[in-house]
């Protein structure tokens, strides 16, 4: 598969008053059109930094990120970002949070079309009724849904998810994972997701990139998740491949802990 998004030997060194710290070393990963790829690793391994580099929010020290043949040098709406802590603007309603993005990305489509798009994406995440509620009035899961709707409404080439379910309780997390899976299966959006949850990665991903612990974290291997789609968390548990993959990833994560 031709790489749609290419992370090409990205290294990141931080220069601080106490010396230099190399967080990432020569991370390389390609993501195909419509592919769902997860980055998995322990907390603090630098996977969120790598995602921020893809987003253009952080500049790599060496190497680069190429999206559809063009190098990423700054943030942009072609890489729709869903933040760990939703990052909704608290003074705007759910609707206004999304329309701010739509207005910026599609200034020429007209007011009616802009409003229709917002309603469409709110509907997609099941929040049409909550359009005029403010973030403070929404539950954690609902806020994250608005964050996902906002990112999708930018019509990005690739959706970047930074541990989007990490701050949620287990039940809400499961429901939201199913929802993301459903949306992805319907639209075939390319996705790069950062997570530390093995089951989450297995449920959603086509491939899982395993990251070593920092300093000098890198992508050690990439696991193909050859589980049939459409997937369903209950049916998956019965599959022998599921357990084989799960064991392999857990073994990797466990070994890296001991090595560190």
């Amino acid at each position: 598969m031709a790489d749609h998004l290419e992370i090409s030997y990205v290294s990141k060194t931080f220069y601080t008053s106490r010396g230099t710290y190399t967080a990432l070393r020569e991370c390389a990963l390609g993501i195909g059109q419509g592919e769902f790829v997860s980055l998995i690793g322990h907390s603090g391994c630098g996977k969120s930094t790598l995602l921020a580099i893809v987003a253009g929010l952080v500049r790599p020290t060496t190497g680069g990120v190429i999206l559809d043949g063009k190098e990423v040098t700054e943030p942009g709406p072609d890489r729709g970002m869903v933040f760990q802590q939703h990052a909704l603007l608290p003074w705007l309603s759910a609707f206004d949070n999304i329309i701010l993005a739509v207005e910026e990305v599609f200034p020429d489509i007209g007011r009616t079309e802009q409003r229709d798009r917002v309603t469409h994406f709110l509907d997609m995440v099941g929040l049409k009724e909550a359009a005029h509620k403010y973030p403070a009035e929404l539950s954690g899961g609902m806020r994250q849904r608005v964050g996902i709707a906002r990112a999708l409404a930018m019509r990005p080439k690739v959706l970047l998810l930074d541990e989007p379910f990490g701050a949620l309780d287990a039940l809400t997390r499961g429901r939201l994972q199913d929802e993301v899976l459903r949306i992805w299966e319907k639209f075939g959006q390319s996705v790069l997701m950062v997570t530390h949850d093995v089951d989450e990665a297995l449920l959603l991903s086509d491939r899982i990139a395993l990251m070593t612990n920092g300093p000098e974290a890198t992508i050690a291997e990439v696991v193909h998740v050859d589980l049939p789609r459409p997937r369903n968390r209950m049916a998956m548990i019965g599959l022998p491949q599921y357990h084989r993959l799960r064991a392999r990833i857990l073994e990797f994560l466990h070994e890296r802990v001991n090595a560190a």
Partner: protein
Amino acid sequence: MKRLPMDAIVLPLVSFVIIIGLWALLSHTVAVFLPGPVQTLTKSWDLIRSPFFDNGPNDKGIGWQVLYSLGRVGMGFTLAMVIGIPAGLMLGLSPVLRKMWDPWVQVLRPVSPLAWLPLGLATFQAATPAAIFTIFITALWPILLNTATGVQQVPAEYIQVGRVLRLSRWRMIRKILIPASLPHILSGLRVSLGVAWLVIVASEMLTGGVGIGFFVWDEWNNLSLEHIILAIGAIGLVGLALDWFMLATARKLCYQPAEG
């Protein structure tokens, strides 16, 4: 629900009775120069009954005196807002400007605004503009510093959202930085208005003319302590009303920050 009228009316009434009693006691025993409550009320009854009489420039009702003072505070405060908010935004946004101007702010801020009054008098050759100038200096610092702090404390995620949307500098300020720092700006305005109301009394005592501060000084020269006590009450009530006004404005404009 049943306790509410008790707490809101009866308890303040109890303290009112205590204060009036203490006042009467003091004026009859140790502080014989001090007019008692009854004497104060009877001697200032004419002023209370018709606060807006106008017998020429040197003999106006206490309502007029308050309004003149409020007018000066309003002018100085508005000027401070017009200059302080944009200046605060710039200082908050630019570390270079902060370093450049910080020594001036740090040295001038602790100076009593009244020290500027003679410079105002010398510059404008008139009492009213000098008083307005003094109020401007008074109100400037809290507005400036709160705005700058507010801008610096805008959560990084909100700015990242703006960067992903590629907001222009001006739209970043208007759509993200100003609304996000509005609670800080408004608390700066509230502090400023409170201090401005404190300072106007003192500066009018020095400049003369019309105004509640000069009224107090004038009544001291007339040895009319009853009228001074009345003025203290009026100044307090107006200050309270100003603070209520600012709080109500803040409640109307500010968002509820979303937790988590």
